[in-house]
Each structure stands twice: as structure tokens, then as C-alpha cells.
């Protein structure tokens, strides 16, 4: 059984009185532990696909089976729970809370999940050490470099031990060397068994993935 199975997914946006087909009859199956790059020009529907995979958006038609369960019919509350426990997000613009320290940003998902304080600080301390941020624990995002910020974001995405990580242009706001660094971290996570799905329009980055899905005009044009 694949970890992720999309069956003829359609996503249509209505802009004014015209309809935009962001995704047309898309099928996709992803096994646990895969490393996939979703590539394509802007407007090809790759971000929409990522949002659907992350349960931030609902398809107009089609089914999405996550670990064998149809998640498109879940209530908003149940979807939030799935996001909390199974999915980690990494964004291009990091999306750190500016007034919280690095440690607090990393702890945020556990706070939302209601994990008690002691357990939280233990896991945050471990994550800070793993990502080389131990000396930065009490710094706020504006006191961190871009690479450090993205490492905080990755630590936050993995703190709940998700089954998959969805990364949307994770190196888009970083210079080449730092981007390499961050990709190395994500690939390391993938090596430990976490499914990694990266959205990018950067061919070099895309070619690092074991499997590449090319999108165009809401359709999958290449999958190898």
C-alpha cells in the first residue's frame, strides 16, 4: 500500500467569472520513504499539489488516501490532527514567529498538541543540538542568519516525528552554499525513513531527488 495515493484529483479556482484548472485529473502514488521533487514553471500547479498533499486545501473531486485512509472527507478538526501528527512543512520564507525565540519556535507544534512542558524542553534541547543551534536557542529569528532560520524551521517540522516532510522551495531564499546545507539536512532526514517531497523550479535541486515529477498546466507531464 502506498503512503500517499491521489486518484484523479481536480482542483479548480474561480477567479472572477473565469475558472482556472490548477490540477486536472492528477494521479500520484508515493511509497513511504521516497524522495520526490515536484518541478515545473510557476502556475503549473505544483504548489497547489503540495497544499493538497499537506491537507491545507481540498480538491474539487478525486480522492486522497493517506496511509490507506481517505483524508478528503475528514472534518477540519481531524485534518488539523493529521497535519499535526503526520506532516511537517518547510516554507521558502521560513515562517518563523518573529517574537518567539528559536527554541520556542521549534516547540510551537508541541505546544499546539498540548505536550507537557518537561517533555517539550527535552525534545527541543535534542533538536537544537541535532541541528547545530544549541548556542542560538534564545535568539529571535531577526537575530539569526537565513540558514539558521531554515534550520529552525526544519527542526520545527520534524519535532513531532512526521511521516512526511513537504518543502516548498526550501532554498529559495538562501544562497547556494547555505541551500546545499539545508538540502543536506532534509536528505539526511529522508535517509532515516521520512518521505520527502520538495517543490522547486530549480532543475539542479530537482535532479538531486530520486524521483522527479514534472508539472505543466495542472498536468503531470513527466514522472521518473
Amino acid at each position, binding site marked *: 500500500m502506498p503512503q500517499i495515493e491521489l486518484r484523479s484529483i481536480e482542483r479548480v479556482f474561480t477567479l472572477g467569472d473565469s475558472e482556472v484548472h490548477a490540477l486536472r485529473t492528477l494521479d500520484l502514488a508515493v511509497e513511504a520513504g521516497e524522495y520526490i521533487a515536484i518541478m515545473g514553471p510557476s502556475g503549473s500547479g505544483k504548489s497547489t499539489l503540495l497544499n493538497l498533499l499537506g491537507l491545507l486545501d481540498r480538491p474539487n473531486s478525486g480522492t486522497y488516501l493517506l496511509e490507506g485512509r481517505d483524508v478528503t472527507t475528514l472534518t*477540519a478538526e481531524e485534518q488539523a490532527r493529521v497535519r499535526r501528527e503526520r506532516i511537517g512543512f518547510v516554507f521558502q520564507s521560513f515562517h518563523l*514567529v518573529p*517574537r*518567539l525565540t528559536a527554541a520556542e519556535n521549534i516547540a510551537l507544534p508541541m505546544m499546539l*498538541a498540548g505536550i507537557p512542558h518537561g517533555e517539550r524542553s527535552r525534545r527541543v534541547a535534542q533538536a537544537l543540538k541535532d541541528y547545530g543551534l544549541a548556542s542560538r536557542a534564545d535568539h529571535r529569528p531577526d537575530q539569526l542568519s537565513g540558514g539558521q532560520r531554515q534550520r529552525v524551521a526544519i527542526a520545527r517540522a520534524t519535532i513531532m516525528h512526521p511521516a512526511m516532510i513537504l518543502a516548498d522551495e526550501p532554498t529559495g531564499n538562501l544562497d547556494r552554499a547555505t541551500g546545499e546545507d539545508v538540502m543536506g539536512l532534509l536528505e539526511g532526514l529522508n535517509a532515516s525513513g521520512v518521505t520527502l517531497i520538495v517543490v522547486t523550479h530549480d532543475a539542479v535541486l530537482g535532479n538531486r531527488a530520486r524521483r522527479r515529477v514534472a508539472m505543466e498546466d495542472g498536468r503531470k507531464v513527466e514522472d521518473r
Partner: protein
Amino acid sequence: MIWSDAVRLALRAITAHRLRSFLTLLGIAVGIAAVILLTSIGEGIHQFVLAEFTQFGTNVIGIAPGKTKTGGAPPSGIPTSVRPLTLDDARALERVANATAVTPVIWGNSEVEANGRLRRTTIYGVNAAMVKVFTLRVRSGQFLPPGEDESARGFVVLGAKLKNELFGAENPLGARLRIGSLQFRVVGVLEAKGQFLGIDLDDTAYIPAARALELYNREGLAEIHVSYEEGVPASRVAEAVKAVLKARHGREDFTVTTQEDMLRTLSKILGILTAAVGALGGISLLVGGVGIVTIMTIAVAERTNEIGLLKALGAPSRTILGIFLGEAVVLAAVGGLAGLTLGVGIAQLASFLVPALPVHTPWSFVVLAELVAIVIGLAAGVLPARRAALLDAVEALRAE
């Protein structure tokens, strides 16, 4: 989410914009301070007025001759017959259950001559129980001796002011004193009581009721006052008093007034007054609430991105609702506490600077005001927080 975490998050968000948050909670603080200050003064006046009225004791029933009623004129031109209240009536009332003291009262205005001086003053004809009924305090000597109703000797007790006017610093005890055509001997002087509704309570002389009847050539008493035990309902004692007098007079030709009824009405009026000034202060509180709505709406707009993130991290809508509601409530609650400090402080300062101004802040008002502040925070937070909770995650993440 654990609620202490929600409060901590709220505090972080509030302290991130110190000036803005301070100004917002200042609005609530001013409102709460106004409410507390105004109700403190209102309650102070309430208590002051009640104290004025109850300085003679609260559990007193007054009986006056004649029934208060309107009827047709008698057919034959014969005047209506009202039996006067007598000293015997007063004595009979002493046996009423729960009655602790009974005093007859006759009053008049006469010239008093003593120590070569002359003064016109109010004369009260009473008995020994007067001290008990109206909680008078004797400063020197004694009050009228008990148990001498009809055969009372010509003793007089002076009010503090009358004593000063007639005798100055001299000791008046044993001195002779003439009231109208009768001779009296001074046996005591009372403590000063001050003024009550413009009547100087110290410019008085108390003589035995029998002597006052003689002095003013009257057959009946002006009033009888009965005091009763604390905690006994006034109506029960009033009924017993009526029963005794009806039995003696054959019909109800007298009027009974309980002080409890009067005080209850008065207290209700003053309570409404306090509530009214409190409501005036409440207007500024409302303005403070609008301030919170404004600032929370701005906060939701500014943090749209963050709301998207929280949704992506798996926060259900009610958690996001809770976070923003929590912020509004913390703002209001902190503002409320600041307002309480401010309001009570100003009230205390006012009573320190103007001791004549009665100020009283009951604890119940303080707790109630803080609760009101919290409720205002909740009400003000609902709209912005709902908007935050209902934001679309994808759109929110994309917002810049």
C-alpha cells in the same frame, strides 16, 4: 493546547507591541477606574446617609396618635374623636414581645433660664428608656431616673450645646434651671451628637414626660418609640404593638411607622444612584472595549501569515480562536487591574484630601469590576478572533 501556554503566548504577543498594548489597556483602565471611583463615592454617600439615619439605632418603631386616612366629613359636625396616647399606653407597650425599651415623647419649644442666662430651646419630655431607644450617651451625671412616670421629679438632662451656652465650662450638675414656669434640677449632660437634617441635636433639654405634659398643658403624647431586639422582623413587632393598643383603645386610632421600612426604601434609592453613576463610568469602559476590538482586528491582519502557519502546524480553528480571544482577555484583565489600582488609589487620595467626602469601595465592586473587564475583553475579542479562526490556510500563508 494547555491553557497556561495560551496565556504565555498571549503575553508574548502583547509585550511585542508595548506602547500599543499599553494604550489599549489604558482605555480599559480608565474605564474601570472611572467606574470604581464613581461607585466608591456613590457607595460612600449611601453608607453616610444610612449612618445619618441609623445613628439612633435601626430597630425603632414610632407610634403617633391618629390614623393616617382620608374619609368623609362627619354628618353632624361633631369633631372626630381620637384617643390620645398616654403614659399608660407607653407602659403597656413595654410588655410587647421582643420590645427592649419604650419611651414616650412630647416636645415643645420653651425658654430655659439658668445661671443668669436665658435661651430658647427644644424641650423633649421622655423617660429613662430614651437613652436606650435612641442610643444617647451620657457624658456626666446620669440620665432621668427610671420608674417615676406620673410622679417624676423635676430633673433635667442637658444636650451638650445647651450646657455650653448656659453654663460654659462650669459644672452644671445640681444647678437649678427654669423651663417656662417649672423648676428643674440638672442631673446630667449628654455627649455631643451633631446635626441631623439641619436639626441641632445638642441644643436640647430632656425632662420627664409627665412634667412636659404639665408644662405644655397637653393630655396626650406626641409619639411613643419602641425599640426591639436586633434580628426580629419589624413587621412582627409592629403587629404586636398594634394589637396591644387596639385592645386598649378599642380601635386603630394611631399610626405605626417602622424605621426598617423607611431605611429599606432609602437604601434602594441610594443603591440605584450608585448603579447610575457606575453606568456613567461604564460608558468610558465601552470606549475601552472598542479600543480592544480595533487593536485585535489590526493584530489579526498583521499576523495573517502566522495564522496560516499555525494552521499548517495543525492548530484547529478553536485553538486559533482561543489564542486571539486569550489576547483580548489578557489585555482587558491587565487593564482592569491597572484601573482598579488607579480607581481605588484616587478614591483613597480623595478621601484623604477631602475628609468630608465619604468614599467606600466594597470588595464585591472590585471583583465585579474585574469580571466586567474580562467579559468586555471576551466580547471585544470574539469578532477578530473568529475572523482569524476562519481564515483560509493557503491564503493566510501566502499573505505578506
